[in-house]
């Protein structure tokens, strides 16, 4: 029984935390949230230099070959810092899609660029409201050209390469890789609940694109990408939820009302105990997800869905009760509480909401029981 990250990865975590404490303070987050930049370029370059972007990419493709457990550890720290960089889009979504679905040639050609931070990738599955669903993807690839509309696309404004859930000329679901640098795409930035992680609407009109993976397997491949991303995003979520609990606890210890710390009142104590409970359950489910991801276990669909459901619940609870614990100060722009409240909702929606993943939990339970 060894249900904890290795000492090496614990060290990586500590390093990452120290680095981000210096290079990704709330000032850095606010610079993107309030400004015109779509991400923090210096931080992004730093992450590339330290090998974080390629953590789970094999050494043969220019990565660090730390495996997915390493990526989970980094994801938690990125979540703690609410880092304003396209890490999840480029690494959990685009690079993973190439690793899963790409040909050897595509991997050799593309992964090095993701690992080095030279290219920013993303995944476009949503077409307005609704959850991922077979047959729901309308963009069409014909003669190497992609046409159709996708929104919201995370980091769709800054990405160079975009994996798109689409269909081929026969109407079969496929994944394609669109080259956004080559023209044939119109990007409109969207106003969202978390401007520190920008989203765009992409209108493809004959954009150069290549197929990724076998025709007809598009939806199964997308599901695999989403399952894997669900675990990684769960680590970002528990990172964020942990910070919310730490902030709320610290404030409750220091803020006085009626002559004593508000943290001495059971209304606050029990609220924060509930947040702690939700966070611990989410963390434990995420750990199981990390194991399933690292070993590509048959349990991955159930582990990923459970990790995501728990993480969505925990982060939402922790971020809203952090504001509540802070009282009036908590809903000011000046306090950092809202950075996490925003991020919690963004992460809770970006690969489909909790309702979608709850359904997948039961799907997986039924499959595993039937087996």
């Amino acid at each position: 029984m060894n249900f904890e990250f290795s000492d090496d990865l614990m060290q990586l975590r500590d390093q990452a935390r120290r680095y981000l404490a210096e290079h990704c303070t709330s000032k850095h987050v606010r610079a993107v949230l309030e400004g015109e930049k779509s991400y923090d370029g210096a931080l992004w370059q730093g992450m590339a230099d330290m090998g974080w972007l390629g953590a789970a990419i094999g050494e043969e493709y220019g990565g660090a070959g730390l495996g997915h457990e390493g990526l989970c550890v980094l994801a938690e720290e990125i979540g703690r810092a609410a880092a304003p960089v396209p890490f999840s889009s480029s690494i959990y979504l685009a690079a993973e899609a190439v690793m899963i679905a790409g040909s050897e040639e595509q991997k050799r050609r593309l992964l090095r660029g993701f690992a080095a931070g030279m290219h920013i990738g993303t995944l476009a599955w949503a077409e307005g409201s609704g959850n991922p669903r077979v047959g729901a993807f309308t963009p069409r690839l014909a003669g190497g050209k992609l046409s159709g509309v996708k929104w919201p696309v995370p980091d769709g404004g800054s990405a160079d390469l975009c994996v798109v859930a689409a269909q081929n000329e026969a109407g079969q679901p496929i994944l394609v890789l669109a080259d956004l640098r080559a023209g044939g795409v119109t990007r409109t930035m969207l106003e969202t609940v978390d401007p520190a992680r920008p989203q765009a609407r992409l209108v493809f009109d004959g954009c150069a694109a290549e197929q990724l993976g076998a025709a007809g397997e598009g939806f199964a491949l997308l599901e695999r990408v989403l399952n894997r991303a669900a675990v990684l995003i769960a680590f970002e979520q528990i990172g964020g939820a942990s910070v919310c609990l730490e902030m709320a606890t610290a404030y409750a210890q220091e803020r006085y009302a009626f002559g004593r710390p508000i943290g001495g009142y059971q209304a606050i104590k029990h609220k924060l105990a509930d947040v702690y409970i939700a966070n611990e359950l989410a963390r434990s489910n995420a750990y199981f997800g990390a194991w399933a991801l690292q070993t590509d276990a048959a349990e991955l669909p159930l582990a990923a869905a459970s990790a995501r459901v728990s993480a969505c619940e925990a982060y939402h609870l922790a971020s809203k009760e952090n504001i509540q614990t802070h009282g009036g100060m908590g809903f000011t722009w000046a306090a950092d509480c809202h950075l996490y409240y925003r991020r919690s909702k963004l992460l809770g929606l970006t690969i489909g909401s909790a309702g979608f993943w709850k359904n997948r939990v039961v799907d997986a339970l039924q499959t595993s029981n039937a087996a």
Partner: protein
Amino acid sequence: MDFEDSTDEAAFRGRARAFLAANAQLKSEAKPVSRGRHIRAEEIALAKDWQARKYAAGFAGITWPKRWGGLELPPIFTVIYQQEEEAYAVPRGVFEIGLGMCIPTMMAYATPEQLERYVGPALRGEEVWCQLFSEPAGGSDVAALRTKAERDGTDWVINGQKIWTSGAHYCDFGIIVTRSDPTVPKHAGLTFFFLDMKSPGVECRPIKQISGTSQFNEVFFTDVRVPDAQRLGAVGAGWKVSITTLMNERLAIGDVPRPDVTDLVALAKMIDLDGAPAINNSAVRERIAEWHCRTQGLKFTRFRTMTALSRGQTPGPENSIAKVVNASKLQDIASYGLDLMGAAGMVMDDDLAPLHALFQEGLMFSPGLRIAGGTDEILRNIIAERVLNLPGDIRVDKDKAFNQVSHGKR
């Protein structure tokens, strides 16, 4: 049981309906507005105009004495007017605090000459009032305020900082509670005044909320002089005066915030879930039913309160339940609405987000509603103590001089 008006009530309702139909736009025809919206200067002008028209038509100061321009009618008539107005998109927020809290406090404590001077202009929408109670260090412990008032001849000199003052920057007058004696226990050392917000030394700074808008202000006081004649109540009796004001607050805050369950039903009809309208999905239906029952339960609780009012009884602290239920419900409905939309739920663009981004705005506005005007926690305490008669919390600062109590680092 019936929902019929008495003859007088029916006549009044009829007049209100006619007035509103002729002078205002139905909410159903206007763009939906969440309570989180910023109040702009042109809206203040509109609000003043609207208040003047209400006054002219005989719908202002409904319960107030005729002597001060009111109609001297029982409270049920205020409720009747509000019921009718609820359907209309009218600019009400600007005068809520002045007419709901400040002037009633004045009427309890000011001189006839002062009332002669101030009540009329407030009622006619010419002058706007604000309330200066909260302080950064106070929060739920309102009486722990530190803004100092020191006697200097026939004046008092005020120094300190207030916070969460709605509309301080456009207000003409304010009521303020200050600490005039820090050497006695918390509640005993307070004194209450009204003041001209244009007095030298008053400085307002807007507070940006997490929604990005600024409904509230910080107000800084630097050697602000207030004549002793503007004191309300005795020196050291400021807490008693404040209670008068705060009792009125709980009656005033009654709006059902949006998005409500009706908006959720509209959304669920509009949006697809797994290939069918979301309204057909059992999980969605359960949530809608639960929120509907809570919403209707509050509505009919208000009807029970109105019945008590129309029988001449005074509504008690049980009114606190509306805010506790509404604030969390708003946050939950907003969040759930976004979840229904899937990834698109994060998008706030007016033309892409359903119902003009009402749900997204609700998400950002609702955390404040759980705090402002009494946190969830304080309101539950009030229900437990005043309705259920359970013991009060232990107050370690109870008998200590204010300046001997620990106040922590924040």
